[in-house]
């Protein structure tokens, strides 16, 4: 508040960032009140691509809604699909074959790496470096190719089905995944050399946009934002679902809470995801990929159901209210960046414009997911 009070002395002006602005990665608008290059107040304005997925959920059968979930966050569609099928399976009490769960984990983690790679490139692009974006795209294409051979699609997969998967992997997938991991392992040191240890990037990220753990708690921030603030929280560990308990992986945590910490969390998460994929590929059991006893008509018993998964950007959770019909009575989609962005207003107060945009980039926004 001191800054606000002082701003009465200075003259402020309004700057309209977006809805079409290179830094907002989509159609987000931020109403900035500026004092020179300092931000006095930044108010995000949402809803430019609001599609009312929740209402669509109420008008579609349980199976038909699958395609919508992936379209909310097109960068980690796999995780979102996973959250949705896991929710319905929880409600219906469907047991999923082990092979299907393993394949789900593999594809979700590949999808997570893909999402982080794109974030990395786009974030460096926000900071003015263009080439890393295309290097990241180069690697990301390998994942998309892999996933395309399995799911038939590159972005919105709709690969999971209640009780299993749409179809089994083909014979090249395992080798392809291993080859990709080998390739990415050799590329990540290059990424670090080119970007992470670059003095310009370090001065731009270190100590910029600190977000305290308490602030994260108050705003319900999750995912890398929370882990960058020193809290070791990951749904995959803390609220294990699928077959995650069977893998040995760490949750990267950094305590500084600044943009660099969030950056490092994501970079380390890629490595952890690769570890998970490797273990899953090693342990991959044989068997069917679809449960035998999946009811034809999905009509979960009356009640509230809740399921949360760790998407690339944080906790994605769904609450449905079922009234035992073939359509949900109410569906609430809780997307991670909605909460993560809500702390931007408080966190960006008094920052420089350039730093605030670095902060915004480090939150890893996917606008369709915020607007839903």
């Amino acid at each position: 508040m001191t800054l606000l009070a002082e701003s009465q002395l200075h003259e402020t002006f309004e700057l309209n960032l977006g809805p079409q602005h290179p830094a907002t990665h989509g159609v987000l608008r931020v109403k900035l009140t500026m004092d020179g290059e300092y931000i006095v107040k930044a108010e995000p304005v949402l809803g430019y691509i609001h599609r009312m997925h929740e209402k669509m959920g109420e008008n579609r059968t349980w199976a038909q809604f699958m395609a919508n979930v992936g379209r909310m966050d097109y960068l980690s569609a796999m995780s979102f699909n996973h959250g949705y099928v896991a929710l319905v399976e929880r409600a219906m009490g469907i047991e999923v074959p082990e092979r299907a769960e393993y394949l789900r984990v593999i594809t979700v983690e590949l999808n997570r790496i893909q999402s982080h790679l794109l974030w990395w490139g786009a974030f460096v692009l926000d900071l003015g470096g263009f080439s890393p974006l295309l290097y990241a795209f180069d690697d990301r294409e390998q994942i998309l190719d892999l996933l395309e051979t399995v799911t038939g699609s590159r972005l919105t997969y709709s690969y999971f089905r209640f009780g299993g998967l749409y179809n089994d992997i083909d014979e090249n997938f395992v080798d392809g995944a291993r080859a990709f991991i080998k390739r990415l392992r050799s590329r990540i040191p290059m990424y670090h050399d080119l970007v992470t240890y670059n003095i310009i990037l370090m001065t731009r990220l270190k100590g910029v946009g600190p977000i305290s753990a308490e602030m994260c708690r108050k705003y319900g921030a999750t995912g890398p934002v929370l882990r960058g603030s020193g809290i070791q929280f990951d749904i995959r560990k803390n609220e294990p679902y699928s077959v995650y308990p069977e893998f040995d992986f760490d949750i990267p945590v950094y305590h500084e809470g600044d943009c660099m910490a969030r950056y490092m969390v994501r970079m380390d998460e890629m490595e952890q995801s690769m570890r998970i994929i490797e273990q899953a590929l090693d342990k991959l059991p044989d068997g069917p990929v679809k449960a035998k006893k999946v009811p034809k008509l999905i009509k979960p018993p009356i009640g509230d159901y809740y399921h949360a998964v760790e998407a690339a950007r944080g906790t994605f959770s769904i609450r449905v209210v079922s009234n035992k019909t073939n359509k949900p009575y109410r569906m609430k989609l809780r997307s991670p960046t909605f909460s993560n962005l809500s702390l931007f207003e408080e966190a960006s107060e008094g920052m420089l414009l350039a730093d605030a945009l670095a902060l915004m980039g480090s939150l890893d926004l996917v606008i369709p997911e915020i607007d839903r």
Partner: protein
Amino acid sequence: MDQAKIKKELAALAAEGMPEPEPVEETPEVEAVPEEQAEAKPKKKEKEKPKPRLNGLVETPYDERGAHVDVQLNPDQVVRAAEILDSEGMTLEAVTGVDWLAEKQMEAVYDYSYTGGELFRVVIRARADRAQPDFPTISNVFGGANWHERETWDLLGINFTGHPQLERLLLPEDADFHPLRKDYKP
């Protein structure tokens, strides 16, 4: 975070708001909806007068429901509940609402979780008259509730009294409807 303490305090809070001193029974609100609801046509519900769920704390099986504790309160008690959970270090994950057209009620649902390590999810719910769905805001307790409440107001028309900025969040500024209401016709 102390699970037992939270449960105790929330149960006490729920008991406070009870209209009659009847002990809390395991009557999840979901039973309020008739079983043979084929097409979610709300008008059919009126035939069988369902028993509304009473205030109180219910421990729900996590594996089936995805939450540990489900508490129903009076609308004016949600702030107290938020303060209790806040003091124990819980996080507000989402605020949402459900439109119970058949019962002419509007329900606000608050999802709390704990990010400190232990797994503990609490659902706080409260119901108000559908004609005048007023709930006190908890955005003073949890800053993150600000947007969630705005969104809920935007889509469902639940009024959060005392909210600093109850404006349209996702819909256009000049929208005059609440699309998630069950009687909304586009």
